[in-house]
């Protein structure tokens, strides 16, 4: 058996300095390999989701709205133009969350793969960042696909419509990072999924100025928009794609809130990963 004769030993083979530099990328590589096993499934969802929304809400409901509102439109534009940045951001948020929450629960609880990663030179922080980078990868390509479908449906009137792509991705990964930290802290995930789906994701989707301007909601419900990454991304997206009126200071606020979410999410997640693995 060659195995028993050609041993060089880890002291010659292992390059710890390189792992310290690129560890997160190795983790992301492994995550993306696992993700690609579901490649067609992810593609199918990424295409079917916008197609269904665009047909039902965009074209169906939008047609009705456009007919009744007349040339003034919603926010001065056609309903689909108004809706597009929000749908894109929503898709980004959903995908980023799926790709941070599930692998994190799997890594700590279901298969415990994080523990075997951590028995190599990889640190908890690198594992956390690697999971996040893989989620970023998925978010980018789903948003691009979603955008393509919208274009095929003729939902993109504005020549600057593509500017909603970065804002959507930004919102997705900000929320994803935060949810990754939450998932890393979880001991019991069953209640979490019920709460997350029914009391967080659904209200955020409905009350973040997605289908109508936030300001047309009763004042006491508007706070939901303020804590929602979806609203901030949508406002930025509308501002960039068709010149939706937003003051400079509000642009800064939207941008800052998403940035804070991202940074806090990443820092917390790295810290929680490190602590939980060291128990």
């Amino acid at each position, binding site marked *: 058996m060659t195995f028993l004769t050609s041993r060089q030993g*880890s002291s010659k083979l292992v390059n710890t300095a390189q*792992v310290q530099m690129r560890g997160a990328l190795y*983790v992301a590589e492994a995550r993306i390999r*696992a993700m690609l096993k579901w490649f067609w499934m992810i593609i199918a969802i990424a295409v079917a989701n916008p197609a269904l929304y665009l047909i039902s809400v965009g074209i169906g409901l939008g047609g009705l709205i456009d007919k009744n509102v007349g040339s003034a439109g919603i926010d001065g534009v056609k309903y689909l133009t108004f809706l597009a940045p929000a749908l894109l951001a929503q898709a980004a948020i959903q995908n980023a969350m799926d790709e941070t929450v599930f692998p994190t629960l799997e890594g700590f609880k279901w298969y415990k793969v994080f523990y*075997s990663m951590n*028995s190599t030179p990889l640190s908890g922080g690198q594992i956390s960042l690697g999971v996040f980078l893989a989620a970023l990868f998925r978010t980018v390509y789903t948003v691009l696909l979603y955008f393509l479908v919208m274009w095929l449906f003729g939902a993109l009137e504005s020549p600057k419509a593509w500017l909603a792509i970065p804002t959507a991705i930004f919102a997705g990964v900000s929320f994803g990072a935060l949810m990754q930290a939450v998932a890393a802290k979880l001991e019991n995930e069953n209640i979490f999924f019920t709460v997350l789906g029914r009391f967080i994701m659904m209200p955020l989707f409905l009350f973040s100025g997605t289908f109508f301007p936030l300001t047309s909601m009763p004042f006491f419900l508007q706070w939901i928009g303020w804590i929602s990454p979806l609203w901030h991304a949508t406002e930025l997206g509308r501002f960039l794609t068709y010149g939706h009126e937003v003051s400079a200071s509000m642009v800064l606020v939207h941008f800052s809130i998403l940035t804070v979410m991202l940074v806090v999410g990443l820092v917390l997640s790295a810290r929680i990963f490190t602590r939980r693995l060291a128990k």
Partner: protein
Amino acid sequence: MSELLISARGLTKKFGDFVAVNGIDFDVQKGESFGLLGPNGAGKSTTMRIIGATSQRDSGTITILGKDPEKNGPQIRAHLGVVPQQDSLDMHLTVVENLYIYGRYFGLPRKFVKGKIEELLSFAQLEEKRDAKVETLSGGMKRRLTIARALVSEPEILMLDEPTTGLDPQARHILWDRLFRLKEQGVTLVITTHFMDEAEQLCDRLIVMDKGNIMAEGSPASLIKDYSTKEVLEVRFGSDRNQEVANKLRSMCERTEELPDRILMYSDDGEALLEQIYSAELHPKTSLVRRSSLEDVFLRLTGRTLIE
């Protein structure tokens, strides 16, 4: 002169009020096969995780490959191969992919890992399963894959936490054979087990642990010599009579242990002892003379059996 790879003094780990490891001392030499024997909850796995430079101690000192795991975790882990109690393989990936990504975690060049995978597949007898998803493997195959995975970086120390728990006898023997080959190759092994036959087969030297403490230390043979007699006579009188007879048996030999279903009698000559029992007109339902094992050592040290 032998080289010291692991050295622990007063090693302590607590979880809240519970003391999992209670100030233990031990050393592991290069090329040695070192065992931690004890029942579930003895503190073996916790000790392993501290040696594995993932879990941090609460007090005491430990050096692994001359380094402190609190400061040099990644530098130590770079030279360890860890086989955890739970396989923790990536279920979504194939056998080959699992080996590949693990090799990458050590920063090994792609080309090296690809070559290494072929050796490891043959070592773990998994060539035919190379492209199978891990989910579909049997327990024994997963275990062999986990061991193969731990070897991808050619570690200085291979650490195995309960390597054969949950495996059928045949799978265990295949695994023991593989571990024996590694030992011959000079790889330092650190093994935890609650199977005394496994400890006897694989370990040059071991510590017997119970409730976070080290009860005894030595080679399997010397532990048996120090803490037990040469032979053991096991007699069964039926659960209702065992108690009544036990008092009479106690005076016949060095020591007895009364278990729920049988009585163990310690003597250097089991056959002679059995004759003595018959001549005293006590007729056991069954009797068995055997050599002392580590199980007897553990019973002597703790008053309990290893597997409860």
